[in-house]
């Protein structure tokens, strides 16, 4: 550490979950924030920049919410290590801002006392003061400050000017800290993991401080009490939760349709533009078939992911998410899953990648692995093009159940249901065998309901969208190029009659796989399509189009390809491929995110093997049964 600091001072925001910490962070930094990962762990690192009233540029970090510095999850470990200065590659923060929910001081202040042991400059931000005063809180900040031995500032993160006093205080604290040169003396840190005895002492100290500084306690939030009487009563609450999930699900498909069509049109336009400008050759093929087609096939899901995260963000910001976990905990516990597992699983219907990333909120590793392992069994939207194609080709439009639904709709529903049911079954088996052990305790605060702030929702969505695009632009981009190379080299000999891909490495792999796949009714065309399908499931549709020597894009391709398939495949083969797609781990992006999230090569391998086994088994049974019923 150099004497004259060149980098701007750093402030860390620490607080309980639900303390409005992120809203405060947004109020301080606005859009000047970026999300990255801490080195070596997958926990997201949120950093922003603001200019203090004195004109100093200050970097501020939003650390994961926690009730304690005794870390219980990877997220909480980051909070502990950063404030303790143990995090590799991170400088020790110059000051800590402890964000406390003013409506709930008794619960929040204990952590403030724990943080004080760090011996670093600390500021207490009494957040959500407006709500607290409405609920009847009368607090004397000066008295509180004197009792706790740290500056206390009331803040209202959601109001313009509601954080001015906090910014002024940060200026003063940093100045004092620089004068005293505290950062050179790390020996002062007196924190050690508190025992239950220490925790009780902290608790008594909080009671003592509050008795002096608080003249009237905040009453419970009445609207929350009334809402919970309805929303948490199982008879009413569970149907409402199902309706909310259904609405979310519906919106993911309907709201996202138009933007997805626009993106699709844009991608086609881009391909055509490149087609006209670049000369024929490998470069053109790489750009069009590899990069634009490959990365485009993933980016096209951005609208769905944004719609999904919009709903998740709303559910989280209102405080409903905790209720959903409460309502589902016992039901999901039936198969050994944690109540919190439902958010990752819901996300996985759009795409397993954000779903698996959302499993970070599950503290216990065994619970988390179980959730991640079954996430790919929730039918993601990348499987839809394959389902649509095969259903259009083989399932006749016929009303069933007295005309309420038609046969294609019923088959589609059955494919989704098969995924969900087998997912629950797999979880049950895993929790009874390899991932044995009692479930992690629930112990979760049910926060007061709050109206979501558009600004926070917008910033949250921006963050999600960026994270997804960065993944599409890095890992997925690389994978797409590899898969393109497999499908393009070596080039077909002169005068070749068959599609070029037949002569490539992918073609050789497809041929090698053919005998293995024959028992489940797959021909060489399918075997070949499955290889590039590893990059993204729906690419298989495009490959089948190439093999059956069809041209065109999107719907045109699908309808003419459907006709071609209907003529050349048997119904048992089509059904077998549908069954295969319910389970098959046909997505390198998913496997790579599992490897990254669990920091293990073992689990993605397990996932690949067991999903392939399931897929093969399901396709085999489907094919054999269909052949014996319908005839080859």
């Amino acid at each position, binding site marked *: 550490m150099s004497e004259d600091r060149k980098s701007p001072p750093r402030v860390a925001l620490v607080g309980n979950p639900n303390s409005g910490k992120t809203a405060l962070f947004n109020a301080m930094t606005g859009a000047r924030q970026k999300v990255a990962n801490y080195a070596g762990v997958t926990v997201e690192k949120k950093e922003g920049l603001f200019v203090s009233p004195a004109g100093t540029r200050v970097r501020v970090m939003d650390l994961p919410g926690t009730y304690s510095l005794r870390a219980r999850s990877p997220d909480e470990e980051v909070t502990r290590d950063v404030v303790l200065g143990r995090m590799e590659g991170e400088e020790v923060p110059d000051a800590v801002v402890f964000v406390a929910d003013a409506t709930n001081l008794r619960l929040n202040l204990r952590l403030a006392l724990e943080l004080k042991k760090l011996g670093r400059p600390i500021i207490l931000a009494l957040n959500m003061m407006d709500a607290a005063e409405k609920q009847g809180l009368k607090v004397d900040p000066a008295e509180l400050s004197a009792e706790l031995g740290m500056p206390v500032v009331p803040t209202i993160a959601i109001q313009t000017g509601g954080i001015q006093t906090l910014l002024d205080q940060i200026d003063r604290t940093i100045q004092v800290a620089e004068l005293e040169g505290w950062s050179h003396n790390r020996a002062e840190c007196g924190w050690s993991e508190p*025992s239950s005895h220490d*925790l009780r002492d902290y608790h008594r100290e909080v009671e003592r401080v509050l008795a002096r500084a608080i003249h009237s306690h905040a009453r419970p939030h009445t609207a929350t009490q009334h809402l919970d009487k309805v929303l948490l009563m199982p008879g009413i609450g569970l149907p409402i939760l199902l309706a909310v999930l259904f609405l979310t699900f519906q919106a993911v498909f309907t709201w996202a349709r138009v933007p997805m069509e626009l993106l699709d049109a844009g991608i086609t336009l881009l391909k055509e533009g490149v087609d006209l400008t670049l000369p024929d050759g490998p470069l053109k093929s790489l750009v069009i078939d590899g990069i634009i087609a490959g990365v485009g096939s993933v980016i096209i899901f951005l609208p769905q992911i944004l719609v999904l995260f919009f709903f998740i963000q709303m559910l989280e910001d209102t405080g409903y998410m905790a209720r959903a976990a409460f309502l589902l905990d016992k039901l999901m516990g039936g198969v050994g899953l944690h109540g919190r597992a439902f958010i990752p699983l819901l996300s996985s219907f759009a795409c397993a990648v954000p779903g698996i990333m959302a499993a970070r909120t599950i503290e216990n590793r065994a619970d988390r692995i179980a959730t991640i392992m079954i996430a790919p069994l929730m039918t993601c939207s990348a499987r839809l093009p394959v389902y649509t194609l095969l259903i259009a080709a083989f399932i006749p439009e016929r009303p069933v159940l007295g005309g309420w639904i038609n046969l294609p709709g019923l088959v589609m529903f059955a494919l989704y249901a098969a995924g969900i049911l087998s997912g629950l079954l797999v979880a049950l088996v895993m929790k009874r065998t390899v991932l044995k052990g009692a479930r992690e305790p629930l112990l979760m*605060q049910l926060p007061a309901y709050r109206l979501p702030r558009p600004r926070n929702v917008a910033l949250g969505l921006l963050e999600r969208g960026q994270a997804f695009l960065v993944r599409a632009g890095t890992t997925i981009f690389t994978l797409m190029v590899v898969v393109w190379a497999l499908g393009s080299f070596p080039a077909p000999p002169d005068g070749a009659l068959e599609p070029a891909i037949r002569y490539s490495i992918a073609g050789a792999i497809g041929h090698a796989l053919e005998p293995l796949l024959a028992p489940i009714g797959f021909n060489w065309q399918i075997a070949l399509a499955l290889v590039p399908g590893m990059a993204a499931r729906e690419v298989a549709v495009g490959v089948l189009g190439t093999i059956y020597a069809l041209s065109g894009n999107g719907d045109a391709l699908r309808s003419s390809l459907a006709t071609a398939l209907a003529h050349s495949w048997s119904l048992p083969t089509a059904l077998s491929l549908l069954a295969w797609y319910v389970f098959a781990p046909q997505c390198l992006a998913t496997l790579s995110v599992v490897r990254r999230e669990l920091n293990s090569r073992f689990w993605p391998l397990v996932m690949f093997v067991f999903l392939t086994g399931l897929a093969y088994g399901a396709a085999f049974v489907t094919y054999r049964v269909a052949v014996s019923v319908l005839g080859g």
Partner: protein
Amino acid sequence: MSPAPADRSAVNPVLLGSLGKGTRAEIVGLDESRVHTPLKSGELERRLIEMGLVEGAHVEVLHEGFPRRDPIAVRVNDHTVALRRAEADAVLVVALTTMSAV
């Protein structure tokens, strides 16, 4: 701090996990030894304290989940905590009143 009143010390404590909806009680002790948990010893007790479930706190069972009335949502002084009955059994309480009696 609310010192345990003399008239309540004679009452046998019951487990928080056994309380029905609407029951109010005061926490008189924590004992995780009877609870089966994957956590290391002493951890559940510390987590309970961190969530405000500590001697002297007043609790009330507000909501019950489904099925088998599990988990439960408990008001702890000023905030609400959701937990499973199995882990709530680590919390010893003495009943104060019941809502239905009021």
